[in-house]
């Protein structure tokens, strides 16, 4: 998959490019806004990673112009501005996700993966299944190996998010943003506690673990065979 990175900071761009290439993406890099816009309008990309502050044309303007041309390529904003307002501005301008600098490569990869997979899903999903784990969104029912698992509403939402992104790495920040809708970092690592709770219910009573910890990145829901 081709990824366009528009970033004026060459060190950061090198880091991002290298990381993405190692993960198997084909990366084009533009170091200013105008070049970035030209590439975005002429080449087909799977995902665009755009810095908000750029010399010449800023990131928001690029995305607005891209969207005006009816190009629906998922856009991930990178920014040093981390306020909710800035985030809202970015998403309003047509961005699909917003990542505040500094970030771990694993975080960026997890989000890009989430963005590219999301594009493919069509229609409302009411039933999710990963291996022997099944989740019925409408009936709010979870079964594993045919056995009913009882979850609290919040645990249900957590599991639902993990299942929607099955096989992908999901970071703690992504969970906080999507399950709790919090755009701040709680002082204590509360997410780990929630995950361990969930594990107690969906993994512990069964012979195989489905919720994996990915070191230095986050979590992944994947059946182990």
């Amino acid at each position: 998959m081709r990824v366009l990175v528009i970033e004026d900071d060459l060190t950061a761009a090198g880091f991002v490019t290298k990381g993405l290439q190692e993960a198997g993406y084909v990366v084009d890099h533009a170091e200013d806004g105008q070049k970035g816009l030209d590439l975005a309008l002429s080449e087909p990309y799977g995902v665009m990673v755009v810095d908000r502050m750029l010399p010449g044309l800023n990131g928001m303007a690029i995305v607005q112009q891209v969207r005006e041309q009816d190009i629906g390529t998922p856009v991930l904003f990178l920014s040093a501005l981390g306020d909710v307002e800035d985030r809202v501005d970015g998403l309003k301008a047509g961005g699909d996700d917003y990542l505040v600098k500094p970030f771990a490569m694993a975080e960026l990869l997890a989000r890009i993966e989430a963005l590219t997979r999301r594009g493919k899903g069509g229609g409302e999903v009411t039933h999710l299944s990963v291996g022997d784990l099944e989740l019925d969104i409408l009936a709010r029912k979870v079964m594993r190996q045919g056995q009913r698992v009882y979850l609290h509403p919040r645990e249900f939402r957590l599991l639902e998010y993990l299942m929607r992104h099955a096989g992908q790495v999901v970071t703690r920040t992504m969970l906080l943003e999507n399950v709790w809708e919090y755009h701040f970092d709680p002082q204590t690592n509360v997410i780990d506690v929630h995950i361990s709770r969930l594990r107690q219910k969906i993994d512990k009573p069964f012979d195989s673990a489905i919720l994996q910890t990915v070191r230095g990145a986050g979590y992944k829901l994947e059946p182990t065979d």
Partner: protein
Amino acid sequence: MPRIDRLIKTTTFRLALLYTALFAGSVGVLFIFVFINTNIFAERQVEAAIQTEVQSFQETYQRTGLTGLIQAINRRIDPNVRTDGIYLLTGADQVRVTGNLLSWPNNLTREDTVGDEIWVNFTIVDMQKAGPDTADVRALLFFIQGGYQLLVGRDIRDSREFRTQLLRSLNIGIGFTVALGVLGGFLFSRSIMGRVERITQTCRRIMRGDLSQRIEGSGTEDELARLSESVNEMLDQIERLMRGLREVSDNVAHDLRTPLNRLRARLEVAVSNAVDPKEKAELQEAIEEADGLLSTFSSLLRIARAEASLKRSFDVLSLGPIVENVADLYRPLAEDKDIAFNVDIDFGCNARGDSNLIAQTLANLTDNAVKYTPDGGSVHLHVCRDDNKAVFEISDTGSGIPPELHEKVFERLYRMESSRTSPGSGLGLSLVDAVVKSHGLKLKLSDNAPGLKVTLIFPDVAESGLPA
């Protein structure tokens, strides 16, 4: 009526009242002066008239003797001649000789003698007017040889009546003065208060972060209009400064975080290139240190911006779900420590603010409570309404904060001696403080015996001085 109450408390009204009192006082003094002088003048006039008459009687007596005097008196009391004089000439043993009094008055009181004149006062029953009426008389007593006495007087009923009439008019006059003064003061202060109130309202809105507000002009060029103008100019300047600060902090965020970000990126690359597991672990630790530095830096920026809080608009938020969410986030953590975690929410509570900042404030407070409460303790979250104000209360059974440190814990990067070993940046409560200030909340720390109780009082949504 709280409005009337407030009106009465205004400076304008008090000034108006003071002026009314001063004015009424001076009018009163003037009236008293006028009254006394008029009175004295009226009395003098009567006395002068009597003296002149007595003098003319004396002359008549010296010229024509007793017979001439009697004739003169009789001329005066001729029923065909209108007179307001009272005359009585008596012989020895006070037997009436002539005059318009039938007998020597029995209620005669002597006044202090002025020179050789003997003034007397008495009352008589006046039969001339319709129905019997008592008339007050002031008279001069005059002795003639041979035991004869002449009494020459005037009915002073009219002047007495004039006096009461005057007194009544003066009282009514003062009454009107006071009433008009109070009414004028009331109307005057209401109009001034309305304008001052508008300035106050605008200032409140500005204090809550909406710096774009300006005080409307009133179309006049008086002191208040000049004050409004100065305030507006001051606000322009503050807004410029705030914008400058915002730009600086944005630039600092960008300029300082970018190199830190690069450092982190390099470390991450180094980790992936490292083969030696020991080296890998050390580099991983370096990344964590960099993360800590970056997170402290972001927190400082966040606090600075929460304090400036140039939020475009604060929304009306239902506090219940926000607290429930935060409680949800921390409940498992509390349960892991065997802490009794009670949440008690009145869902009818609204507050105005930035939901993310308020959530973070409540999360920071809850985080602290759970962190500093020992295993087996309890944490209680409570949301209630007090007089239309939403109140959030969190109490724990931890080590608490000594009262002398209540102010200090909100300072940036401050950590209590006892908590230096536990994880944390010393910025959690600073963010709480910044949000408290920018949102106009009231924060109270108190002893939960044992532990700490934090009370956050949100302003009334209707009265928070922000546009709906």
